């Protein structure tokens, strides 16, 4: 029993990661109807950016400087936009039309110098994380400007294929720049084992502290998102878009801006996933494949349900760990020969498939009445 | 050369020819009809069989030798068969224009004493039923397309009549062939009603011999062959369609293709790609307009290529067609143009395979005529009449001139009367106007010469040139032929000239009013930075006078080429400060110049032209578009135009 619980808890914490990636999917799908396969690649991107800034020794000073400059430029632009209230537009001939460029270059230089000045020591966490977020905002901007906007009004499958293209691009881009190495990320989360429920089971249940802190971080993020969606103006706008694109248009929110915001938020979610995952296994190329695992989670939870993504992730994570461990045992018990292991590889998908047959709209989805 | 069936003598009527066609080329296509999305093809055997069945069926309905069968509808194989069926049992088909209103149709039916009619569809049946009330002699109506006619009573479905025919043939297999055998070449084959410019339509009676001669003669001139493709899109009641589709179909073995509907003619033309083509000038003009409009939307490269190669084609295309010598470089360039422009263009127009194309009916502008010649389409003019079974003159290969209507077809004799009227005599000359001996005698002399009503002359090359309607042709004081419409048309071929009025009847010389074309001249003026504020101002500009003068002098050179017209060159002209307008009574509602009215109205101007003044005061009342009237006043300049000494080219 104790062993089962250990397996279960381990699985649940893997599930947290799945949930985080699935959450990114759901946010984007809800707001823009895009099935974003690049969410996994975004986790990789976020992780690499953070590693650059936090532990530049791994890769090299100039990468650090570059990422630092980029993030500072983005922050500069965002500050400028906030101060000037929305639009960069200015009359022709007015010098202020060049303001964004000036700010971007200036802030970029500042960021670069800041990186250089710090030498190879990297930035402190309180600076590195916002800077990594700024990098993800830049990614969101590029995707919105160069991928989504030209493809507006295309069919879903075309947009999906485009995000696959984006995935290829990000994969290729990050590996060209940073190689295929694994970069451990140590932001000070303890990896020590600890024992729980020693009173109930003999010897208690062995749990990794990191898993616990991962769960906590994810929880904080979800809470933060909830506040963002409920309390902020832009959050409410996002929810309006999810309900009805035309309605959102009519209250005067530019769709492009919505997309940019939501991709940025998905970038933040990706960064959190990268922190948790990277602390555990290091930042590496295989993070891209997290996207694949998030898909069955979405089936269970429904494409448009945030709680669904969380519950679905936990279910899948726990389920596949348990299945992995017990499948050979059970098959041996049932048929006399143990089926081979590796069930983890497909369990989530088959579970999703079965689920689809019986409850196609997912756990939290709504039933659709068709009309002619 | 030609493959006209050799034993033409024994097959002296169309029903006999049909039987012969079915025997000798039974499996070859005779008719095609675009129906249900494909070109349904009927071979000669099928055509003969369908015709026989219908003939037998009509016979059981009481149709007898000498009966008239009114046929009304679009070009359809089944309607052509109806013609054959009527002829097979000694009747005379009377095709009628399908867009005639009931009253026109009623006149024809009454005049022809027709008891039977075959109609294409509900629309025509409804017309016939209405007529039946006032013309009770019309007894039997047969319809082809049953749509909407299911509940009609007293009318017969084409298919039902054929079924009756089957039954009759089962009883008496020789029913139709016996009747066919009785027929002779001199029998009436068809009656075609000509609208005529005045009075009631007259029924022109043409015999089998008339039509067979015409069909073969035309075929021989242009080497038509069995299997040549033709799109029959002009009304069946028009003599041209009857000759090209029915008569030449039966004598030569052409394939007659019937379009799906009037709306799809262009598409159908393109699909069929006929080898033998006829189009009246207005159709050709429309085609060119469409080409121009569509090319204007093309990319810059395409447009430049089009312009460049079309200019080249205008230079050498016609010469190549005529087999005249053309330099190797020009030939090569033309080949290149064929690949990039002419070929695709002909393909778009459905003319890729055209071997012979005719245009006739009215004067065709040189721009239009030459456009098609330049592309390599063997476009020719022909001159003909219903009364002649079409063929009077035709352009022989290698002798195609835009300003003539060709040489007499073999067996046709031509003569020009003193008043300039063209008369002809040929085996194709009609028998009579039905029930109208007076009109027949007026038109056809006792020895077989037919008055065309057109004035013309034979030029040095032996080509006939038509000048005008004979009644409009006058003389100058010295007896020189003066053909105002001929001169006016020559002027109007210039894009800058919108209308022209020529004067000179019983005068010393010819003079003219010219109306400039506001768009064309305005455009011309803008490119030369000539400023103007109004039509009146533009018309008075000396530069415009220069332009018009040069064009008039060109016409004079043209006229001088011709000894009979040389004396009628334009000596003096003026440019009218106002556009001739139907609202002022200067034009007819169909935009024809009312010469007499204009002469009276602007008497002072005409007098000044006849005198020697260089300018004249005028004032005239104008009606504006909103109905208000106003006065135009001013001084109009009069210019002398250079004339050319005649007989520059010694005959």
């Amino acid at each position, binding site marked *: 029993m104790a062993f089962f619980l250990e397996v279960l808890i381990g699985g649940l914490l893997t599930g947290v990661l799945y949930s985080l990636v699935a959450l990114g999917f759901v946010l984007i799908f809800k707001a823009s109807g895009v099935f974003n396969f690049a969410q996994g690649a975004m986790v990789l991107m976020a992780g690499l950016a953070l590693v650059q800034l936090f532990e530049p020794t791994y890769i090299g000073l100039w990468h650090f400087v570059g990422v630092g400059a980029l993030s500072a430029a983005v922050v500069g632009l965002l500050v400028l936009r906030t101060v000037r209230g929305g639009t960069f537009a200015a009359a022709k001939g007015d010098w202020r039309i060049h303001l964004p460029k000036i700010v971007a270059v200036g802030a970029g230089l500042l960021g670069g110098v800041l990186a250089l000045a710090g030498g190879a020591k990297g930035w402190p966490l309180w600076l590195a994380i916002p800077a990594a977020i700024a990098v993800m905002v830049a990614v969101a901007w590029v995707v919105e400007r160069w991928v989504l906007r030209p493809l507006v009004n295309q069919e879903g499958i075309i947009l999906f294929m485009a995000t696959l293209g984006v995935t290829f691009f990000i994969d290729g881009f990050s590996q060209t720049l940073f190689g295929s190495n694994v970069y451990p990320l140590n932001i000070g989360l303890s990896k020590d084992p600890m024992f729980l429920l020693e009173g109930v089971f003999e010897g208690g249940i062995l749990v990794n502290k990191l898993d616990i802190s991962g769960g906590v971080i994810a929880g904080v993020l979800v809470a933060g998102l909830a506040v963002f969606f409920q309390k902020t103006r832009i959050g409410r706008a996002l929810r309006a878009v999810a309900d009805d694109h035309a309605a959102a248009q009519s209250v005067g929110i530019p769709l492009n801006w919505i997309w940019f915001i939501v991709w940025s938020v998905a970038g933040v979610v990706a960064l959190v996933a990268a922190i948790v995952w990277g602390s555990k296994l290091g930042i590496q190329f295989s993070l891209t494949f997290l996207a694949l695992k998030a898909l069955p989670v979405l089936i269970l939870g429904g494409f448009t349900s945030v709680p669904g993504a969380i519950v679905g992730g936990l279910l899948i994570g726990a389920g596949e760990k348990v299945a992995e461990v017990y499948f050979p045992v059970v098959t041996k018990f049932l048929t006399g020969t143990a089926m081979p292991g590796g069930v983890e590889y497909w369990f989530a998908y088959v579970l999703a498939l079965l689920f689809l047959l019986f409850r196609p709209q997912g756990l939290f989805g709504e039933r659709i009445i068709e009309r002619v | 050369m030609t493959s006209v069936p050799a034993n033409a003598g024994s097959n002296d009527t169309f029903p006999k020819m049909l039987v012969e066609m079915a025997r000798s080329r039974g499996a070859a296509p005779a008719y095609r009809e675009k129906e249900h999305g494909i070109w349904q093809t009927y071979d000669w055997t099928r055509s003969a069989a369908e015709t026989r069945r219908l003939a037998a069926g009509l016979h059981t309905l009481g149709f007898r030798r000498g009966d008239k069968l009114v046929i009304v509808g679009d070009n359809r194989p089944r309607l052509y068969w109806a013609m054959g069926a009527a002829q097979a049992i000694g009747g005379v088909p009377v095709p009628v224009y399908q867009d005639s209103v009931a009253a026109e149709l009623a006149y024809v039916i009454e005049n022809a004493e027709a008891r039977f009619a075959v109609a294409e569809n509900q629309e025509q049946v409804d017309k016939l039923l209405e007529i039946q009330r006032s013309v009770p002699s019309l007894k039997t109506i047969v319809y082809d397309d049953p749509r909407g006619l299911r509940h009609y009573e007293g009318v017969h479905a084409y298919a039902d009549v054929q079924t009756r025919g089957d039954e009759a043939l089962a009883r008496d297999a020789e029913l139709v062939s016996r009747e066919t055998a009785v027929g002779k070449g001199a029998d009436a084959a068809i009656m075609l009603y000509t609208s005529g410019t005045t009075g009631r339509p007259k029924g022109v009676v043409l015999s089998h011999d008339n039509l067979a001669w015409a069909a073969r003669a035309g075929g021989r001139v242009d080497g038509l062959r069995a299997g040549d493709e033709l799109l029959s899109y002009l009304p069946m009641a028009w003599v041209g369609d009857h000759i090209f589709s029915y008569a030449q179909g039966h004598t030569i073995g052409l394939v007659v293709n019937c379009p799906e509907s009037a709306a799809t003619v262009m598409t159908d033309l393109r699909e069929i790609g006929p080898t033998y083509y006829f189009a009246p000038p207005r159709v050709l003009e429309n085609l060119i307009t469409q080409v121009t409009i569509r090319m204007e939307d093309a990319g810059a490269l395409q447009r430049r290529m089009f312009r460049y190669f079309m200019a080249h084609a205008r230079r050498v295309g016609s010469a190549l067609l005529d087999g005249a010598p053309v330099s190797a470089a020009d030939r090569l360039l033309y080949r290149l143009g064929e690949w990039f422009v002419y070929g695709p263009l002909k393909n778009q127009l*459905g003319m890729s395979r055209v071997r012979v194309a005719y245009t006739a009916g009215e004067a065709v502008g040189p721009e239009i005529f030459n456009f098609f010649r330049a592309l390599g389409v063997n476009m020719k003019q022909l001159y003909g009449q219903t009364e002649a079974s079409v063929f009077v003159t035709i352009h022989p290969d290698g002798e195609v001139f835009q300003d003539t209507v060709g040489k007499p077809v073999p067996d046709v004799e031509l003569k020009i009367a003193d008043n300039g009227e063209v008369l002809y005599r040929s085996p194709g000359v009609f028998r009579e106007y039905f029930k109208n001996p007076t009109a027949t005698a007026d038109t056809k002399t006792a020895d077989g010469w037919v008055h065309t009503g057109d004035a013309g002359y034979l030029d040095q090359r032996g080509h006939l040139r038509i000048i005008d309607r004979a009644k409009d042709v006058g003389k100058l004081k010295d007896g020189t032929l003066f053909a105002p419409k001929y001169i006016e048309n020559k002027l109007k071929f210039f894009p800058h000239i919108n209308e022209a009025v020529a004067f000179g009847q019983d005068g010393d010389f010819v003079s003219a009013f010219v109306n400039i074309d506001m768009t064309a001249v305005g455009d011309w003026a803008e490119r030369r930075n000539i400023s103007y504020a109004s039509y009146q101002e533009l018309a008075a500009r000396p530069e415009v006078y220069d332009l018009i003068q040069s064009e008039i002098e060109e016409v004079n050179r043209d006229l001088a080429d011709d000894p009979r017209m040389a004396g009628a060159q334009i000596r003096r002209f003026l440019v009218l400060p106002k556009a001739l307008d139907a609202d002022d009574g200067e034009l007819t509602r169909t935009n024809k110049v009312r010469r007499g009215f204009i002469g009276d109205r602007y008497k002072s101007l005409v007098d000044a032209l006849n005198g020697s003044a260089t300018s004249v005061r005028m004032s005239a009342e104008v009606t504006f578009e909103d109905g208000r009237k106003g006065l135009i006043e001013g001084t109009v300049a009069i210019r002398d135009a250079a004339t050319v000494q005649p007989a520059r080219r010694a005959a």
Partner: protein
Amino acid sequence: MFYREAGQFKTSYGRDMAVFPIAQDRIAIGLIVAIAFLAVPFMATEYFLSSIMVPTLILALAAIGLNILVGYCGQVSLGSGAFMAIGAYAAYNFAIRVPELPLLVTILLGGVVSAMVGIAFGIPSLRIKGFYLAVATLAAQFFFDWLFLRVGWFTNYTPSGSVNAPQLNVFGWIVNTPTEKYLFVLGVVCVLAVLAKNLVRGHVGRQWMAIRDMDIAAEIIGIRPMYAKLTAFAVSSFFVGVAGSLWAFVHLGSWEPLAFNIDRSFQLLFAVIIGGLGSIAGCFMGAAFMWILPIFLDIALPPLGELVGWKMDKATVSHFGFMIFGALIVFFLIVEPHGLARLWSIMKEKLRLWPFPY
């Protein structure tokens, strides 16, 4: 410009419904086929035949299969790699367990087995649509990856997990050299492509398209959705399965399950979309694009890098190629979301209308 359609009229429905109703198209396609059979085998190098032509053709066949499902019937699948694997392993097992069977039959049986599995995995499509279905097809992908990797029976318990194709004996013709392989594959692909074209223009094809365009209306005019969808899955999987067995037997010779992993599925989906949804000819263009572009990048990138003084090692070339590839795909989707086939037909339309713009 090349088209001379005047005079090409149709006197029967047979001619009107022909695949290539225009004579110039018939000539062009005849020429292409003739060149492919008669000229290419003698002029191309062995490398070109075995590394470019053979795989491109087989991928095109698989793309045709996938296009029937995605492009014609509107059911998105991310599991086509698995169905290639099923075809390959089924053919392999028929070959080693029933060696008497002729090779062609073995290969076709591979397709048949794949078709049956396809029907099973098509059942969810009766209830779900779009991306939900796409994820369901992923289950096939991962399940069969695992099955062939872990369950020894399928690989005849070879210790390495890698299996070898039997000798290719097509009714006595030993297919051995690259040229022979090319001709064999070309023959099979041509025949199957014709069959596919016939299906999609026949009434079953119309049923698929009706389901794709508006499934409710389709059902109301009497199309049984189950029949239409499951036939699409079956036919699609058959083509993909045959392509899989060809890929394994003819192109690879010996292979592991990795040859048919999720990347293959994505590759095929890209081939279909870049080629053009709902176009058989597009499958060939899409397959060529997907197969040849990476090879081209591999060859072209190092010298290009040298130009700007960047020495790329092999890994960098592949990563950089990936990046360019991804960017090109996005670029392509933006320029013409309906694929190369649409681009081609627009061009053809322009040529047909020449010299007019419309």
